[in-house]
């Protein structure tokens, strides 16, 4: 009789060991909650949003409504989970982990653009931008564009009614090196599905070739050196909506500035092409390493 009891005791000790280990290593809480003061009633957290001036404290005084329709509302034993508690449980973050990661990926973006600032001559054309992302928010890019010019009806009106002499630059093509910074990342719902997007700023420096670039510097020496390309800079803002791991829709407003002396005048002037760009970009490699978190 004592032998079986001893055997069972040993068995109990052996089998209890994993349980003891499991109890001895509780995972640390995501955010340790401060201990309530003795006697103080535990208050629900106030749903405020810092930094935006969103004051939702009025709601905190009311009974917290269920932000989502839960089947469990009908069951008294199951606690009601509103959005705030879900967020504070660290199970659903306000903006969840980035799904679309760009670090060490290459983006190829063909776009079409049209200028929105010149009332007399609209510039439009196509561009190709290749970017390599050094980190998720920083990229270096090469941006090449070709331009065409379309006179508007106002050219005819200005010349007919006001005898205007409109000297205009005719850009042909440009190549710029650029840096892109994407400090804004967000998500949105459309048709009850999630899309992720980021907002970026782009700035660059390069060269632009206009129709005066081939003009000789010395008019008495037509075979001599020409003006050559103009130094150009660009600055713009844009949004990138990710549709898949490797495809995104881009829109951007980019201003390209350069100094040119248009034909017919001896005055040089800063030329600005403020253009609305739209395009669809491809990412290489195709797979985003953050997709698993969705």
């Amino acid at each position: 009789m004592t032998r079986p009891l001893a055997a069972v005791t040993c068995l109990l000790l052996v089998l209890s060991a994993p349980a003891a280990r499991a109890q001895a290593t509780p995972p640390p809480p995501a955010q340790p909650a401060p201990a309530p003061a003795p006697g103080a009633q535990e208050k629900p957290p106030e749903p405020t949003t810092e930094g935006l001036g969103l004051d939702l404290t009025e709601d905190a005084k009311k009974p917290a409504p269920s932000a989502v329709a839960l089947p469990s509302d009908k069951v008294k034993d199951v606690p009601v989970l509103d959005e705030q508690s879900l967020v504070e449980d660290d199970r659903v973050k306000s903006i969840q982990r980035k799904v679309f990661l760009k670090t060490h990926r290459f983006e190829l973006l063909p776009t079409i653009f049209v200028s929105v600032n010149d009332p007399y001559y609209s510039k439009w054309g196509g561009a190709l931008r290749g970017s390599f992302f050094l980190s998720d928010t920083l990229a270096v890019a090469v941006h090449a564009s070709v331009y065409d010019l379309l006179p508007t009806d106002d050219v005819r009106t200005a010349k007919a009614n006001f005898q205007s002499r409109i000297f205009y630059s005719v850009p042909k093509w440009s190549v710029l090196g650029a840096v892109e910074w994407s400090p804004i990342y967000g998500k949105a719902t459309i048709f009850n599905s999630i899309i992720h997007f980021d907002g970026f700023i782009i700035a660059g420096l390069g060269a632009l070739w206009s129709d005066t670039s081939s003009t000789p510097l010395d008019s008495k020496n037509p075979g001599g050196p020409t003006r050559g390309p103009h130094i150009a800079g660009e600055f713009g803002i844009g949004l990138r909506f990710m549709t898949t791991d490797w495809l995104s829709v881009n829109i951007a407003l980019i201003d390209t500035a350069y100094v040119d002396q248009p034909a017919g005048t001896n005055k040089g002037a800063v030329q600005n092409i403020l253009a609305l760009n739209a395009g669809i970009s491809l990412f290489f490699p195709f797979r985003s390493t953050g997709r698993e978190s969705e």
Partner: protein
Amino acid sequence: MNARLVVLVALALAPVARAQDLTPSTEAGDTAAVDRDIGPLKDRVPPVTGYTFLMARRFEIAPTFSLSFRDAFWTKYVVGATATYHFTETLGLALRGGFAFTSVSGAAQICPAGEACRSPTKEELDGKGPGQIKLITALDFEWAPLYGKISLLAEGFAHFNLYLIAGPAAIQYKAPKDANVPGSDSAWAVGGEAGLGMRFIFNRWMALRFELRDVIYREKTVGATETTGASYQVRNQLFFDIGLSFFFPNSFTEG
């Protein structure tokens, strides 16, 4: 003897089983149990959580200021207001109106014979330079398919929605007089407008809105004679709007 042994073994295994059950729940807030009871998380939480405001069945009143751009002759500064009723979270109907103050555009140029080119005066432009808009009214259908949050440098977040508008518009403008008579007369034109807007939500009843609009209409141009009749041209007038929206009623029921 054997029965006792079985009972003892069962008692010994019970805490192990409990410990194994509790391990995942302790780590992640018992997600498995909640998922089992009330469904998976993705079905319980909307794609974008925490709408700070809802628009359905609410009125929106927004005083607005609009600035025209890409103007060849006249720059317009429009003071106006927009009243919108939101039938659903995404669909609304807006009535807008605005009065335009005009100034000579920086791109305008006149080159009188024997003189250097210069910027024209208002009197020189009046009746000859198109785009002298005085009033704009429009009935816009609004579709706001996109609601989102923006993470701002990982510190805070902003709620916004994006919407499209389109609808008929009526424009009062200064039209040239017939037969090359100097000066202008007021005239109305019917056209349409389309645009893209964005609301940044401050709280449950106030938002800041930005819009880009293209107002398309047919305008009478100078040069009409009694024999040829009036001539017209289609004009695209671009506006950038900024407005402050107030929603009524100023609260709403979630869920």
